[in-house]
């Protein structure tokens, strides 16, 4: 019996929040920040990061700009496209190597009255097969989005593009989701969903599943089969739509899982050929995580985490 269980049991419970209330609270939290506090991103251009291929653990690189033929053929059902991509992903071996590496670029676009600034920061996560992780955050850049934005920015007196920015220090805390190694998470959708919901008595499971799934895709070394199962779990949730021919912030096209309505619409964009994650982004194009590489590697991890 836990401490003060009597109080917990006897005192009235709180009815569940409705989805609109949760989303409004979430938007209120994130919205307050749009204007001012942006990460301190030193003005180092990230030109070197071109659109590259996702490489899973030493396996063959799959071109990300695939699916050109899809546009000429009769457009297949989005659900079928996703299912086929998930099948191909699930068939991939988990990969070898001591470290799992996820390299991405975080993109944020901030609108002022007359111009839009695009900020980018490189974010690499290394997770050890044994224990522990490292992060490398930076370098970063902030530039006017288009030549017209650059002109408007100059006209405005070229103000600091990172005014009011914050540092990008990273902390991780457990989501209490599982005590198993993530590589042992179920590969069957229903079992995976049950495992994800096991430790959570959430009243709005789809919102929680969506939120947790983003981090399962971005931040943990889940196996290709688990990731494929996750796509299927999400595709089956109320409020989640599958849409084909969705373009990420860097212009890569794939099939998308879309959740929510504007202004809180989010998209998980998946490469149609490989099933690999391309990007997770806000539907309004205001921000995105653009995946560059993801998978196990024999490359050595850095000795310690770095932030620049």
């Amino acid at each position: 019996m836990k401490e003060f269980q009597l109080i917990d049991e006897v005192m009235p419970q709180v009815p569940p929040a409705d989805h609109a209330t949760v989303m409004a609270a979430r938007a209120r939290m994130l919205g307050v920040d749009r204007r001012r506090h942006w990460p301190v991103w030193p003005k180092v251009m990230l030109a070197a990061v071109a659109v590259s291929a996702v490489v899973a653990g030493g396996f063959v690189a799959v071109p990300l700009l695939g699916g050109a033929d899809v546009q000429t053929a009769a457009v297949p059902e989005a659900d079928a496209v996703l299912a086929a991509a998930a099948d191909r992903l699930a068939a991939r071996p988990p990969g070898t190597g001591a470290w799992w590496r996820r390299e991405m670029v975080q993109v944020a676009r901030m609108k002022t009255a007359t111009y839009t600034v695009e900020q980018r920061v490189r974010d690499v996560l290394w997770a050890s097969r044994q224990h522990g992780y490292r992060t490398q955050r930076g370098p970063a850049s902030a530039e006017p989005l288009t030549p017209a934005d650059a002109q408007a920015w100059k006209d405005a007196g070229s103000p600091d593009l990172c005014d009011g920015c914050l540092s990008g220090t990273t902390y991780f805390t457990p989501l209490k989701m599982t005590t198993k190694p993530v590589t042992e998470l179920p590969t069957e959708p229903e079992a995976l969903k049950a495992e994800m919901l096991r430790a959570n008595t959430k009243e709005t499971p789809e919102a929680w599943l969506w939120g947790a799934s983003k981090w399962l895709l971005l931040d943990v070394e889940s196996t290709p089969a688990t990731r494929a199962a996750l796509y299927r779990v999400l595709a089956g949730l109320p409020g989640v739509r599958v849409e084909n021919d969705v373009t990420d912030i860097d212009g890569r096209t794939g099939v998308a899982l879309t959740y929510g309505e504007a202004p809180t619409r989010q998209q998980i964009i998946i490469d149609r050929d490989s099933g690999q994650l391309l990007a997770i982004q806000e539907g309004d194009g205001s921000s995105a995580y653009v995946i560059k590489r993801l998978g196990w590697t024999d490359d050595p991890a850095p000795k310690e985490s770095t932030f620049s």
Partner: protein
Amino acid sequence: MTTFLDGAVADPERFSAVFDAHYEEIRSYIGRRLDLDVAEDLAAETFLIAFRRRDGFDAAKGGIRPWLYGVATKLIGRHRRAELRRYRALARSGPPADEDSHDQRVVDRVAARVTVRQLSAALAGLSRGERDVVLLIAYGELTYDEVAAALGIAYGTVASRLSRARTKLRDALGVEV
């Protein structure tokens, strides 16, 4: 390794993971101490404050949950009178008839011979500091260390408040709590 999710606290976009993971429990914690309309507002306020102060979050001083519970508890503190009014109302009339699926709960309460009325009266009899400690443990399932971190008080203070609270609750309810 086990799952570590949630993401960067200082990173505005990823802070949304903290919201997704903890909003419901924070809302529930506040909602069990204050009326729901106030609670929903304070739950949103809790995350707004946490979000604004995310740069000051220090993982070395405790986890995110105690930090959020601490912010929420401070906000509840501004509504101390409303909380007491609520307990007194519950002590008079018990829970609203339409509140959740209470049939089984009523049975449980009777079995324990402790009713919402008695317990509400007993909670109203605690000092604010005692109530914070007791309810962070009862509703938030925080450890003593986490309670200390959440409230910014010493471990010894947590222990002494608990000790006093137990005595008061036992005297009021006639059972060990």
